[in-house]
């Protein structure tokens, strides 16, 4: 309620005006009194929305296990997600370093249940996805998955995820954790208003599945004794999807990786999530299986140059800006955002492009959000040429790594750029954003 609205606050404002003018209130004049005539306490507005009930706290089926194992949680929307699992007084830096090395060197266990999931079903499901996503889906075989990018009609990246074909007429689509409701709403909007002729239906399955990511060179060894299907490299190559059973529980198994390692994501009905997680953890003990959290996930994906929508993109980034042109189906007649991608401003060579940034001093970790300048000593009103989007210390590489959106970034690879900081400019070299295993050999192990 502003001070010019309602009797209660209005009188306070008049009191201030009267003092300022040195006149009594009646001489200042009053407005027509409106509600609220009497003060309303903040408690009345808040009602029960206080303390634990301020907002729903969403937890995954594995939450209690994570809590019992000392997880430090972070808020992701309404979700609580395990950020890292400190051991024996470790701080976050030490814990994340240990977790990263464990995944790259053996096997890690990660709760990916919060990822959005949508079951897209119907004769025209494939046509529906063809029209929505930039990718080509008609060629996707049953039992295969592909990384998908969804644009808004303005051509900018809206969401991303993995789309798996689970039968000729049904797809298991994943979205970002935060994007799940809005992606479903966007899909339902297009289905009902633009293409009501299509025979396709959408059902949210975000909470139907508990998702347990098993990642690292030992992932196959850990899982192979628990599942009833052949998960050898030939039977289940990278981006394969198969139904099966794990410890008797029905599962959808994805061979996917957000770490750059050999990896699987075990999807089981959510009530079984906790038991299957514990089963995998116990089976992995011989391999030193290590639970890891979102912070380690962020570092591992950054080492591979995988983007996070909303962190490395900000609603003004095209697939080409993010280095993802390869994902666009070149022969598709149309998809949401296609027309916009051809606009002059969106094909300009001066656009910001995602590149890696390597500090000259490997111990210096850049601030995320920091500006990037073309020249040393540049200060406003000089324009920045870009900014840092992701920045971490990589214990695996023994140095800091960062990604940034830099004007004409790919043409600048090899150049030295400057990040202004309190203690002077930090020189950085523009580089490829893939810092680890650039050939992708580990992914296909």
């Amino acid at each position: 309620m502003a001070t010019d609205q309602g009797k209660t606050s209005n009188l306070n404002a008049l009191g201030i005006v009267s003092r300022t003018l040195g006149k009594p209130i009646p001489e200042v004049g009053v407005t027509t009194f409106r509600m609220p005539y009497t003060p309303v306490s903040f408690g009345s507005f808040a009602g029960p929305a206080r303390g634990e009930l301020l907002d729903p706290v969403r937890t995954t089926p594995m939450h209690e296990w994570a809590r019992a194992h000392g997880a430090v949680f972070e808020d992701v929307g309404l979700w609580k997600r395990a950020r890292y699992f400190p051991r024996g007084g470790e701080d976050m830096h030490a814990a994340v370093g240990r977790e990263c090395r464990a995944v790259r060197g053996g096997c890690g266990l990660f709760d990916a249940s919060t990822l959005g999931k949508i079951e897209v079903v119907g004769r025209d499901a494939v046509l529906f996805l063809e029209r929505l996503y930039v990718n080509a889906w008609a060629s996707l075989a049953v039992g295969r998955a592909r990384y998908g990018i969804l644009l808004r009609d303005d051509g900018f990246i809206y969401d991303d995820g993995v789309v798996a074909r689970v039968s000729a007429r049904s797809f298991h689509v994943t979205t970002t954790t935060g994007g799940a409701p809005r992606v479903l709403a966007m899909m339902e909007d297009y289905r009902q208003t633009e293409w009501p002729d299509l025979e396709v239906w959408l059902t949210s399955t975000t909470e139907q599945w508990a998702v347990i990511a098993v990642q690292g060179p030992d992932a196959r060894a850990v899982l192979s004794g628990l599942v009833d299907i052949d998960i050898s490299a030939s039977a289940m190559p990278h981006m394969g999807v198969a139904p099966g059973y794990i410890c008797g529980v029905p599962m959808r198994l994805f061979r996917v990786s957000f770490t750059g390692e050999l990896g699987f994501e075990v999807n089981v009905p959510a009530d079984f999530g906790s038991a299957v997680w514990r089963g995998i953890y116990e089976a992995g003990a011989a391999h030193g299986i290590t639970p890891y959290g979102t912070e380690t996930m962020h570092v591992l994906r950054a080492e591979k140059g995988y983007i996070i929508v909303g962190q490395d993109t900000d609603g003004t980034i095209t697939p080409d800006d993010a280095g993802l042109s390869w994902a666009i189906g070149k022969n598709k007649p149309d998809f949401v955002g296609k027309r916009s991608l051809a606009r002059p401003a969106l094909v300009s060579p001066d656009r910001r492009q995602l590149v890696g940034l390597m500090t000259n001093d490997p111990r210096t970790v850049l601030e995320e959000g920091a500006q990037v300048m073309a020249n040393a000593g540049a200060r406003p009103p000089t324009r920045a040429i870009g900014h840092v989007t992701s920045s971490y210390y990589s214990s695996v590489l023994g140095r800091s790594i960062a990604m940034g959106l830099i004007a004409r970034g790919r043409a600048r690879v090899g150049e030295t750029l400057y990040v202004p900081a309190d203690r002077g400019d930090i020189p950085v070299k523009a580089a490829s954003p893939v810092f680890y295993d650039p050939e992708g050999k580990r992914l296909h192990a």
Partner: protein
Amino acid sequence: MRDLTAARSPPLIVASATVRALPPATRYVLRGDPRVRSAAQAALGFHVPEIPCRAGGGGERAALWLGPDEWLLIAPARLASALPAMLNRALDELPHSLVDVSHRQTALAVSGPEAATLLAAGCPLDLDTSAFPVGMCTRTVLAKAEIVLWRTERLEFRIEVWRSFAAYVSQFLAEAARGII
């Protein structure tokens, strides 16, 4: 190989005199046109309503109208395999979508003379029996959570809620009860 098929952990809820957790159930979202509705009804042996916001069947087996092409089917947990098998046979030739959401959500019963008053603390709908009669169901909100609300008896409601919101919903009802009951 270990067998974990008995190791189910449903979401926790805060039970009270008015609120209790209902047992796990088999749930499917059925989407399709009117032919799908009648074929499903014939296969299931209970009413799949064509009237908006009405539930057919009753007790442990029910079909809730949620949209012009959308029904929530509820059956006992022991029918986890039988229900989809039966429906897949009946609907095979018809354009439709049948998706398992048994674990996506959980159910609470709110019962007793104060049930409607309690729900009104967080639900903006008129819950008087004249406006929300027995057998009515709808998507709505309870405070900050989206729910499906179904009046199963004059003094009893069933709430279907996504599992991660179940704790919040039951805590909210417990808090609301402190001021009412």
